[in-house]
Structures are given as C-alpha cells and as structure tokens.
C-alpha cells in the first residue's frame, strides 16, 4: 500500500482538534506552549465544552493564546488572571473557567492573586507554564529561575545572595486547603504529553464538579531564552529543571 493510499480520511488516527484554529502560532520553534495549547484544545473538544469555556490569557509569551483556541477569552493584566477567573466562575458557575499563566505572571507579579484564588478554593483550573525565564521580554530572570541559571538579568547565573531562591510556588499551592488537585507535568515525550493531557482533563472535571482549585504545572522549555536548540532544551530541562521541580501529583483529593 502506498503512502498516498494510506492518507485517507477512513484511516485517520490523529489530526489537529477543531477547537484549535488554523492561525499559525507566534511561538518560537519547539516551544512547549504550542503543545499545551493543543492539549487544552483537545480536552475541551473531548469534553464537548467549546461553548461553555472561558479562558483567561496572561501577560507573557502566551498573551496571544486567545488567537489560537476558538473559545471565548479574556486577556488579563499581568498576574491578574486568577482575579478575573474568580469573578467569571462565580457569576457563571456552570462554565469551565481556566487561566493560562507563565512563571512571571503567576509566581511573581500575580502571587497574591494566585494564592488567594487557590486559598478561596475557586472552582477554576490554573495552567502554569514554568520555564524558569521571562520569554517575551527577552529572557530575564523569573521567580523559578534555578540557582546558577543564566538569564538576561543574571548574566553570571542566579546568585542566591543577590536574587534569592527559586520559588516552588506549586508546592506552596498544594499546601492550601482550597486546592483539590496540584500536579506537575512536562510535554517533552509522548508519554509525558499523554499524562499532561490526562491531568488537564482531571483538572477541568474538578472545576466542573466544584471540588476547588486545580493547578497543573507544566515544566517547560524556552529554547530561545535558554539559548539552546529545542532538542537540547528538552535534555537540559530533564537534567536541571526536573530535580528542582519533580514531576508528579503534589496533591490529589
């Protein structure tokens, strides 16, 4: 059987979900954002929730997330996504409301909004992209930047005496009684992509069942910011990010 014969709608096993539109994404080649966007879109399609979902886009590289997923979106000021999500979910309790935030948005400027939304147990899902760097503004230090890790504002590596410690905010969020599900994943291998997707699905289901706040951290790469190729970034992430931010469930109630 030739390739052309195999390429037939009857034999289709995987294609881009319709919840994701055809607009080319602005992300750098190999960026984890694209995979996570795709997983969210797939879960929304599988749950048949396209008409019931409101996403909150952050400030950061994912500011334009609203261009790629055909759902209703609000774009929040830097760090404020959980505040928007709180109000939306409380006013529209039968809708699926999620925020999509980077490490700077969620763990630096928006720490208060994140912690208090989670502590109130808002029935929202927080998707947290942790790549240890500020991608959009050109690779400056993030709250999650590792000790010794170079960035535009830590050219000699993060110095604890000068810059303080990397913030493991997900661990902190797991301590709060308002969270029901706090989990950390990656999307660098097929197996990890599958697990991440399951986690997003579970988080969305929790939100709809009113169990409290679900947090799905995706340890991600920023190959432009890290100044590595996409493949080398994945290796670097496994070697350096995973020891500091180990994958797995931190809380599952």
């Amino acid at each position, binding site marked *: 059987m030739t390739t052309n014969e195999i390429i037939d709608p009857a034999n289709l096993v995987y294609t881009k979900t319709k919840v994701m539109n055809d607009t080319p994404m602005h992300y750098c080649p190999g960026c984890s954002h694209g995979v996570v966007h795709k997983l969210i879109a797939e879960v929304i399609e599988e749950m048949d929730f396209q*008409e019931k979902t409101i996403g909150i886009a952050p400030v950061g590289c994912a500011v334009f997330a609203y261009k790629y997923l055909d759902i209703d979106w609000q774009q929040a000021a830097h760090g404020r996504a959980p*505040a928007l999500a709180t*109000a939306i979910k409380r006013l529209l309790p039968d809708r699926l409301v999620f925020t999509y935030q980077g490490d700077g948005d969620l763990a630096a400027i928006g720490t208060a909004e994140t912690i208090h939304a989670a502590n109130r147990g808002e029935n929202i899902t927080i998707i947290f992209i942790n790549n240890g760097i500020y991608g959009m503004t050109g690779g400056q230090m993030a709250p999650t930047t590792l000790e010794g890790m170079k960035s535009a504002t830590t050219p000699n590596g993060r110095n604890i005496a000068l810059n303080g410690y990397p913030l493991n905010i997900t661990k902190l969020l797991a301590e709060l009684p308002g969270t029901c599900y706090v989990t950390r994943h990656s999307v660098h291998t097929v197996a990890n992509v599958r697990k991440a997707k399951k986690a997003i699905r579970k988080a969305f289901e929790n939100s709809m069942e009113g169990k409290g706040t679900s947090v799905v951290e995706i340890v991600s790469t920023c190959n432009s910011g890290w100044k590595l190729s996409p493949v080398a970034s994945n290796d670097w992430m496994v070697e350096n990010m995973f020891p500091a931010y180990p994958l797995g469930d931190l809380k599952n109630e």
Partner: protein
Amino acid sequence: MNDSKKHTVKEVRLMKGNEAIAHAAVRCGCDGYFGYPITPQSEIMETLMELEPWNTTGMVVLQAESETASINMVYGAAGCGKKSMTSSSSPGISLMQEGISYIACAELPCVIVNVMRGGPGLGTIQPSQADYYQSVKGGGHGDYKLITLAPASVQEMADYTVLAFELAFKYSTPSLILADGVIGQMMEKVILPPFQPRMTEAEIREKCPWATLGKTADRKPNIITSLCLQAEQMEAINLRLQKKYRDIEDNEVLFEEFSCEDAEYIIIAFGTTARVCQKAVEMARVEGIKAGLLRPITLFPFPTTAISNYADRIKAMLTVEMSAGQMVDDVRLAVNGRIPVEFYGRLGGIVPSPDEVLKALKDKIVIK
C-alpha cells in the same frame, strides 16, 4: 394611618451615603460587587454582606485580597456583560488604576466608587476632593476618560449608583462615582430606587454581543483584550475612544444652579463643598452680595459650556474645593481669561466652613 394614605407614602429611609450605594446596587440589578475594606467607605461592602443579596437577587459579593484583585474581578465580570462594581477610597483607587486603564481600553461597562479621603500617601481618613485630577484626567496610563459623577447627598449616592450603571452600559465604559468622606458617612433620608431584575443571560447576549459567556456555534470567539501591537490599529482604537468621549460630552453633562439668575459672582463647587458653598451664597445674599452657585454633577463631562456662558454675564468666579485647586483649572479653561477665576481650598481632610467661603468670596473676588 388609614389605607388610602398608606399608598401615597414613599419608602423613606434614614441611612449613610455608603449604605445607600449598597442598597441601590442591589436594587438596580447589580450582578457582582468586589471590594477591599478601606475607611471611609467600608460600609458599602459591610451593608452588602448584611443584605446577603445572593439569597435574593443572586448578586455575588466578594471581599477580595486587594484593590488590585477587586478591580480585576470587576474586569472579569464586566467582560461577561455582568453589572459589576467596586468601591474604595483614595489610596485604594490609586492601586486600581492599572485595572481601570485596561477596562477603559477594553470598553467594558462597570461602576467604581471613590469615597475620597485626604492624601497624598496614606494621608487621613477625613474627607477630601484631591482625587479630581486622577478621576477626570485619566488616572492610569493612556488616553482615556471616566464618566465621573459627583453626588452631594445621600439621595444622590443612591440615584447616581443607578445612573452610573446606565451610563456605563450606554457607552460601554467605566463610570466613577466621586464622593467624599462626608457624603459617605453622613446620614440623611433617602428614597431608594425601585427593584429591577438582574439581566438574564439571554438579555446579556442581546445587549452585549461581545460578552464572554461561552462561544456559541453561531459566532466567532469573543475576546476581551486591551492589547493591539499594530500602532495603526491602536491609534484607531484610541480615535474610537475619543469619539465616544466627545459623544459623552455632547449628551451627558449634568450640573445644578443655585441663585445664578441675577448673580454677579458665581461659586463653582462640587460634592460636599457645594453644600457648604450654598450656605455661603445664602449668607452673601443676606449681605446684599449677588452670589450664585454652580455645582457640576458630572465632572467628566465637565459643564464647560454653562460656565463659559456665565463668563459673559458676571464679574468673577470663585472655585472652592477640598484640594489645593484642581477643578479650578477646568473652570479657567472654560472661562478662558474673560473674567477673574479665583480659588479657595482646604487640604488634607479639612472641610471649609460657610464663613470661610464667604470671606474668601469677599476678599478674593467681590473686592476687585
């Protein structure tokens, strides 16, 4: 009381200005209040929490972790086409400026209440009007305006809560109620507005087709954003905003006059200060000074034309404010040098007395 008389009696209540805002919000079908305590306006949220409107109208009331969160909750709610509001006092309003700028650019309707206190900084908890510039000249970053209503009584606190929502939805823009600690704290009799139901989701979809209620199959995604990286497009958005502000200036100016018909001298004052000045005008009249009072009710849009018209008929104006002199700039722009415009003010939380105002009237303008 016999039955026939009972039907003609309106429901008159005695309450604080802050309480009147809370009652009016519930009654006008507000969907959500998000706030953070700060003196002298905490009674707004306290009253709402006592009223428990979530059990009656379904209105959501939430104490947020900060004014920053409050205004962004309002942004989220407003983006869903919901009637939402917050309230604070001067330092808290400063903290909200980022969110207000975003809401103005995203063209969302909402109501913000500022019960002003003396600043700058943490300042005092006594009444002030020193947030005039912040309220009518922008406040946050970028070219935007807030419809700004200045109540001078507890009744107006209730009435303008309703009006502020009407204007916010009419123009899809944030409205600000600019009160001060006196109006917020004092008790007066008030007739509360009638109950109107909250908008149903079908009504919101009809009236606010941009609202993010979930993308139905028959339309494209609704996106609430203030971001536009193409400068030409951003200029177009700005021009649209400016056109809206011109429409508001053309249609929504409100002011009140007192003894202005034959006046030779007019005092311009708003809010609490206008009440003091009205007494000063009465005292001046007793002394044979032909004084009047013009009270701007909308600070944006400012009653520029009305003030300008008086400049051709009278000898001088005195602007009185609880500030170092902010609104006086707009009065002078309206008058454009045709007659003297003098200023008298008290700062940092002091309310001027009618005697002081009368003396200022005499010393600063009548004598000339």
